């Protein structure tokens, strides 16, 4: 009985609890759906770190604008190619880190090196510079030459993802107090609970409106969305599609991800092109839009999204044609292809929202078309074994659920790893494809664009290497106080300087 009294008392006093006061301040609260484990800028290619640090605390030399597919100056004001392997960058003068040290070529050299430190395993370095060696040469205080081996025609683009850290940062361990040049200073990190950024009044560029940003972590996306609804947070940059119920606050954005099923084209029966085509034809993509996939997703035609150079816009999404799929299968069978072989669908739990249901749906469709498809959903560790070479032995024909992110505008980040015989995630072996990739990687300008287009036409229409599903969208819930539209970049960064307050 004591309990009841206590509960009543508690409720009574709770109703007097004031809701958070937002009145006049220029502070925002961001609720992220991952718990920030590290804050080192060299991990900024991870979306959780990137949304906090990238371009807010730490900046890059160049900045890719996905809207225009143009490369904009940031810490570098201009750049030019010196020779096949070397580029020269002009640093923005007078830029200071938050600890008041000045940005100089040594910081560029340091940042490149640090990203390649083996023991750190920096995300940026491991993801984009793994096979590249860099040497730098300071020409003067604001000019630096970067030489890469192998040479890269798109080095300035590559450097749009490298946050510049001061050479005073520790070399062999992660910093917990990132020090950058950006419009916000990293003020506090309460591990597991929150991180706080405050405006940098000495910022070299335009002074942003938001004065202070608090990041909270809620791994349950429904709770994150509820927090914006309850007024406890202003932005939840990444909520689940099923929670995006209010068109006023819940905004979708293309998130530069492409969802696919990777076909293992090296093993029967899927080493037969007709079988691969039948797989594509058996899937009713339109039925999945707005149901298991978010409304707004676009049927994909190739691995890279439309914002990439060399995206082949002539490719058409596969239609849903069950009859033809069955016919193709029958033909293949007649030619002795073992089409009854079990095809294992390898899914990864939560690779994107509703990942399991998507696989269940596709499995049902494949079964209907006459494939012997089984489904296995794995956690990331187990899934990885199927996704990355070397594949587990004995190999069996499988379809692996994948999602690939290329927000960087050039297919080089995609083509080799996905389609080249030697690619780490590739399950195909096609000499023509390998040749095209090698040529395109070395080319530049319009030739590069044309070669990439040719590659995707070959891979997706002639060879049929995979089952492209959709160009994906993400959802942000933005509180009524803010004037902010998420873009394709919201997937990897959240620039506080782009946030405005609505006039009230």
């Amino acid at each position, binding site marked *: 009985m004591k309990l009841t009294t206590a509960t009543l008392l*508690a409720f009574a006093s709770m109703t007097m609890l004031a809701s958070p006061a937002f009145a006049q301040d220029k502070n925002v609260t961001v609720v992220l759906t991952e718990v920030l484990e590290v804050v080192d800028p060299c991990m900024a290619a991870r979306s959780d770190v990137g949304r906090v640090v990238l371009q807010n605390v730490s900046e890059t030399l160049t900045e890719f604008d996905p809207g225009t597919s143009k490369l904009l100056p940031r810490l570098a004001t201009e750049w030019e190619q010196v020779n096949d392997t070397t580029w020269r960058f002009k640093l923005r003068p007078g830029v200071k880190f938050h600890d008041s040290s000045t940005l100089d070529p040594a910081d560029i050299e340091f940042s490149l090196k640090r990203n390649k430190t083996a023991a750190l395993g920096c995300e940026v370095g491991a993801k*984009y510079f793994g096979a590249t060696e860099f040497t730098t040469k300071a020409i003067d205080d604001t000019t630096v030459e970067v030489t890469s081996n192998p040479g890269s025609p798109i080095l300035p683009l590559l450097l749009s993802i490298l946050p510049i850290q001061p050479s005073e940062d520790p070399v062999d361990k992660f910093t917990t107090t990132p020090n950058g040049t950006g419009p916000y200073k990293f003020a506090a990190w309460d591990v597991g609970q929150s991180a706080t950024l405050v405006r940098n009044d000495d910022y070299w560029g335009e002074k942003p409106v938001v004065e202070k940003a608090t990041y909270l972590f809620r791994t349950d996306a429904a709770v994150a969305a509820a927090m914006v609804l309850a007024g406890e947070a202003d932005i939840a940059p990444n909520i689940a599609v099923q929670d995006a119920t209010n068109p006023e606050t819940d905004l979708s954005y293309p998130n530069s991800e492409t969802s696919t099923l990777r076909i293992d084209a090296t093993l029967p029966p899927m080493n037969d092109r007709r079988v691969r085509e039948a797989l594509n034809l058996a899937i009713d993509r339109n039925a999945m839009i707005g149901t298991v996939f978010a409304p707004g997703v676009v049927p994909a035609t190739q691995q890279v999204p439309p914002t990439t150079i060399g995206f082949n816009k002539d490719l058409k999404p596969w239609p849903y044609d069950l009859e033809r799929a069955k016919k193709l299968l029958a033909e293949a069978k007649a030619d002795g292809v073992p089409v009854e072989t079990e095809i294992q669908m390898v899914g990864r739990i939560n690779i994107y929202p509703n990942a399991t249901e998507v696989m269940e749906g596709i499995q049902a469709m494949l079964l209907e078309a006459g494939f012997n498809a089984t489904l296995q959903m794995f956690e990331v560790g187990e899934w*990885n074994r199927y996704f990355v070479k070397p594949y587990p032995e004995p190999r069996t024909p499988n379809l692996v659920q994948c999602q690939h992110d290329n927000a960087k505008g050039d297919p080089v980040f995609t083509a080799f790893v996905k389609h080249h015989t030697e690619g780490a995630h590739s399950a195909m072996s096609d000499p023509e494809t390998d040749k095209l990739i090698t040529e395109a990687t070395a080319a530049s300008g319009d030739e590069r664009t044309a070669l990439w287009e040719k590659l995707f036409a070959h891979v997706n229409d002639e060879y049929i290497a995979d089952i492209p599903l959709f160009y994906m969208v993400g959802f942000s819930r933005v509180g009524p106080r803010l004037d902010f539209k998420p873009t394709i970049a919201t997937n990897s960064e959240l620039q506080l300087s782009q946030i405005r307050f609505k006039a009230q």
Partner: protein
Amino acid sequence: MGSFVLKRSLYSIISLVGLLVLVFFLSRLTGDPAALYLPVDAPASVREAFREARGLNDPLIVQFGDFVWNLLHFDFGESLRRQRPAFDVVLEAFPWTLCLAAITMSLVLLGAVVLGSLAAMNVGKSFDRISSVISLAAASAPDFWVALMAIFLFAVALGWVPTSGTGTPWHWILPVAVLFIRPFGLILQVVRGSMITALSSAYVKTARAKGVRQRAITFVHALRNAMLPVITVAGDQAAGLLNGAVVVESVFGFPGIGKLMIDSILQRDFAVVLAAIMITSLAIFIMNLLIDLAYALLDPRIRY
């Protein structure tokens, strides 16, 4: 008493060592931590360099030797994922779990003892039946269901409490309430059963013959005798909470050890896993010791 504590400590150390060795070796069977830490696009050369730099290529027995050697210096190694000392990571998380468990279990015991005793005094009557059914239903309901419903109802719709987070005492209400339900249902049943036995025992009759009030009989005479099995079960439940209330932690954004443990297992962050197991086992051991001492305190017949 002293020798009892000593013996128990020795046993626990044996168990703990066995546990750590077991976890150390078995966990290495679960795949390559580097593969999970590095981005999937990372080339093989980067992976190899990372493994080499992190000592993951050393023979298992060498790794184990390092682990033991470091452990002797009270060093659990570094969290692969966070690149900070694993012990620090665990120590940041553990107080949250400890507080959550302590508050929840105190309330559970209070509630279960009061309601369980009332049920025992009214065996077979509607109060007893209803409390049994409700507590049983509550105990078998999925906890995330309860958690999310509570958030939608009390935080979003009614606005009585914050949805989640840790800032003020108000933030603790929902998580504690959700955690409360399962052990409450179970312990209520145990209290009820144990109190029925106690209330029918001979000394209760003596107390009635002395003219003691029913309430004093129930809560002074019978309760203390009925507490032994209750404490045993409560200890098991508390151990469960100390191992982490994963759902509550992730739903309410409590940076506790349960979620840390799960994440670390899924990420193969072995140093953190081992440190977390060490801390929680130690806490559970201390709790069990306290429970044994509580036995002796409650029942003078028990001597160690």
